[in-house]
């Protein structure tokens, strides 16, 4: 569970992972936008555009609503902190993360829920109908994704004999205890993929590019934010996207990740990781171009499918293993 390593190395690894998450995440958003633009026969902004946006937002004077309370100004920090902390529980380029002991998949899900709780409060705090609408919709989408998410990861956890993400990834990467039949994995993978689309607010559940009151969810909650507060929230949502892509990439296909701490293994691990998440970003960009956003009350069916898939994954696991 806890790799034997000197404390300095552990802290260095944690910091390195935080730096990777912080630095790579805007590029992933930029990449998805670029893919969408190209598929729509547009030139589109450069992949590095989100960095420029963040820089600009940080340097703008923030405008706060007179109705808001300290909850509104504290929320960006809480969302940022909970997202980054959740990101540190999952291995990115090295499979043995020092923070593995701090929490398992349940802690991961509930940390993200902490950020969501405050974001919902902030949406209500501004007093306008848009914020409340976004909060209310976010709540229902979250209610339907979390059970599916927990069931899907549990099916994987059983194969690896652990619910701690780092242990799952490490064992899968070393091909320990892998089931001979991958059907349980495939079921869980498709469930998690649907969950990720919903959790990160992508088409067909939410459209990150819209500001139309009838359709927006995440954007409605953060509508009243500006300046540095908006910058933190945008950054946090990019990190959340990257963390979920990492979850898919490393839990279901961890091969290539550094299983030891040699410089060679670490650099290969980082390179493979970047290729994997870039590939997933391409996939998401393509999906966003191919599908229309679902009506809010049709999302239920989609997430119901995710839950059933996860349940089938669990059933297959027990059936095939006896």
């Amino acid at each position, binding site marked *: 569970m806890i790799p034997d390593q000197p404390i300095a190395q552990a802290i260095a690894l944690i910091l390195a992972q935080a730096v990777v998450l912080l630095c790579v995440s805007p590029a992933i958003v930029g990449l998805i936008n670029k893919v969408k633009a190209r598929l729509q026969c547009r030139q589109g902004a450069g992949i590095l555009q989100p960095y420029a946006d963040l820089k600009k937002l*940080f340097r703008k004077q923030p405008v706060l609503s007179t109705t808001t309370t300290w909850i509104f100004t504290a929320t960006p*920090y809480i969302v*940022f902190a909970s997202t980054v902390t959740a990101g540190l529980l999952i291995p990115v380029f090295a499979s043995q993360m020092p923070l593995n*002991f*701090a*929490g398992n998949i349940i802690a991961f899900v509930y940390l993200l829920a902490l950020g969501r709780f405050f974001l919902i*409060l902030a949406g209500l705090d501004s*007093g*306008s109908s848009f914020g409340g609408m976004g909060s209310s919709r976010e*709540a229902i989408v979250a209610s339907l994704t979390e059970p599916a998410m927990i069931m899907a990861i549990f099916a994987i956890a059983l194969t690896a004999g652990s619910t701690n993400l780092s242990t799952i990834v490490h064992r899968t990467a070393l091909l320990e205890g892998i089931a001979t039949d991958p059907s349980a994995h495939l079921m869980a993978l498709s469930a998690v993929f649907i969950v990720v689309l919903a959790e990160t607010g992508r088409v067909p559940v939410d459209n990150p590019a819209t500001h139309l009151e009838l359709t927006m969810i995440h954007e409605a909650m953060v509508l009243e934010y500006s300046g540095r507060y908006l910058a933190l929230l945008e950054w946090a949502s990019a990190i959340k996207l990257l963390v979920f892509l990492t979850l898919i990439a490393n839990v279901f296909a961890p091969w290539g990740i550094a299983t030891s701490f040699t410089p060679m293994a670490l650099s290969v691990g980082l390179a493979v990781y970047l290729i994997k998440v870039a590939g997933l970003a391409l996939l998401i960009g393509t999906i966003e171009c191919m599908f229309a956003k679902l009506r809010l009350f049709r999302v239920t069916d989609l997430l119901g499918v995710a839950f059933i898939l996860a349940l089938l994954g669990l059933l297959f696991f027990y059936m095939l293993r006896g």
Partner: protein
Amino acid sequence: MAILFFLMVASYAAGLLLPLCCPARPKIQNLVAHGSAAFGSLGGIGLGIVGLFGPDPLTMSVPSALPLLTFAVRLDALSSFFLLTISLIGLAASIYAVGYVTAWYGHISIALLGSLYNGFLLTMTLVTLADDGFFFLIAWELMSLVSYFLVVTEHEKADVRHAGLFYLIMTHVGTAFIILTFLLLFEGSGSFSFDAFRHPEQPLPDGIRTTVFVLALVGFGTKAGVVPLHVWLPYAHPAAPSHISALMSGVMIKTAIYALLRVYFDFFGGQFPWWWGFVVLVVGAVSALLGVMYALMEHDLKSLLAYHSVENIGIILLGIGAGMIFHSYGLDELAVLGVIAGLYHTINHAVFKALLFFGAGSLLYATHTRNMEEYGGLLRRMPWTGACFLIGAVSIAALPPTNGFVSEWLVFQSLFMSYQIPSLAMKLMLPIAAAMLALTGVLAMTCFAKAFGISFLALPRTSHAKHAQEVPWTMRIAMGVLSAVCLALGLAPMLAVPIIDRVAASMIGSSIADKMLALDGWALAPVNVEFSSLSTPALGLVLAATAALGLGLVACCGGTFPRRYSKTWACGLNLTSRMEYSAAGFVQPIKRVFSTIYQPTVKLETEFLEESRYFAKRRRFEFHIAPVFQTYFYDPVIAFMSGLADRMRIVQGGSLHLYLAYMFVTLVVLLLAAL
């Protein structure tokens, strides 16, 4: 130890009698009653700590003049744990009450309220300490009666009287089942002492044991408020004064959990088939999910909290049910884990539910309404209450790093451990219960985002909310203390878990304290260290560090720009509170998605302008959710009972001669029977 016991009982007794003898100055009565209660609670806390760490259980017994009845008390680990929980909440409630009852000076008798309050604490304490079936029943019945009188404190209101009557009937139906439980146990042992229940002369046959299991589950389940026996709870708990609601929701319903553990693990020595545990698990899962679902639709803040008690009792039963299943398969270490999870959630729920009821009481004190739709913007006006309520809300929503998260996490782990059970059905059923718990958790998060967001944030919706003021300092201190306990139980589970492990080990006989703690106690690792681990101190530290990173980033790149304040954009109009999302609007999508459960009925009436039907003058919108349990479960029972009562009126002729004749006939029959 005996000294502490007498100190506690004497303080409560003083609090019971002294206010009634005091001069009619409400302030003095208030201080005397709640001061004695606070002393009694301190004694209870001391007694609980001594009982938890003491080597042997304390026993005392006083024979009585009545046959079969002995006033026997016994303080073992299980009793001590519940005694500690009750006394802790009792202490906070006593401090809170000093400020809270000032609103009633001159309206109702403070002496009576304070006296009953002490009686309530005393009877609850005795329920956990009783070591004799008869004595237990007397304490239980007194607890129910005293709490009934407390519920109808504001008896001039019709709905309070109705709530009280409903509670009185339901609690007595429950008591009837409990009496049957004890009578069946008495059959086997020939004595009412708990010791005889533990070691009966001849073992009970399986049929009787199963009957006892069902009777106890129904009887105590009524008090605990499990679905479908929960209907009284959302009526009775909100009707009582808020510090009483906190005690009823926080700890009184836990006495039923205590009694269930006592019967199943102590009297039966843990000898039961797997399906007992499964029944408890199903009852827990259904209560948790339906409890939170009905809570979401509730806009009376105190009723909402009462429904959450149903939910949390469900979560506690999920842990205990999983423990029972593991125990019946001989997986004792996992059984201890399940019971630890249930007990940890018991104390956590007591703390945050009392805190939230105190918060709701403060809002009631400040605004004179319980309807959330009339609150709004209260965080600016009541910053302390708001901050404490937020901590309670985060805890009950089980968000890290608070106490609710730790115990819910433990429940999850014990459900996930199901892969070690040999039976395939159980292997699948426990993860499904975990998925239901996940849904419950996220719905609870939604519900408290609604409760806090609608009550405390944005603009005040009424003048009540606009002119609200912060509550007296005693009330704030009580809330502050409980908030601190919430955080402490969340951030330092390594201190609490070994103690709770002693309680669970005393029932099951195998201790897992050393297996629960990894890394010198900095991480919790339920039984199998490879399978899962959690360290809330580390999570708290990383959260603080990353929040500091966020602050640092802001400071480096542009944090120097001053903030500008402006009105929220409301499409060119002036923002009014009518533009805000209401509580009903917030949960509308959930109502629609889960409409099979709610079966909502919506009524929309529109009055149009005479000139044109394109312009509405007035709109009236009503929605109700179907009271399923009331319609299909309670109403038939009540109809049957009152029908029966009508038939029985034939014998009740009202003539004195007839009654004398009844007595004569009865006497003759009895004499003949005696011959």
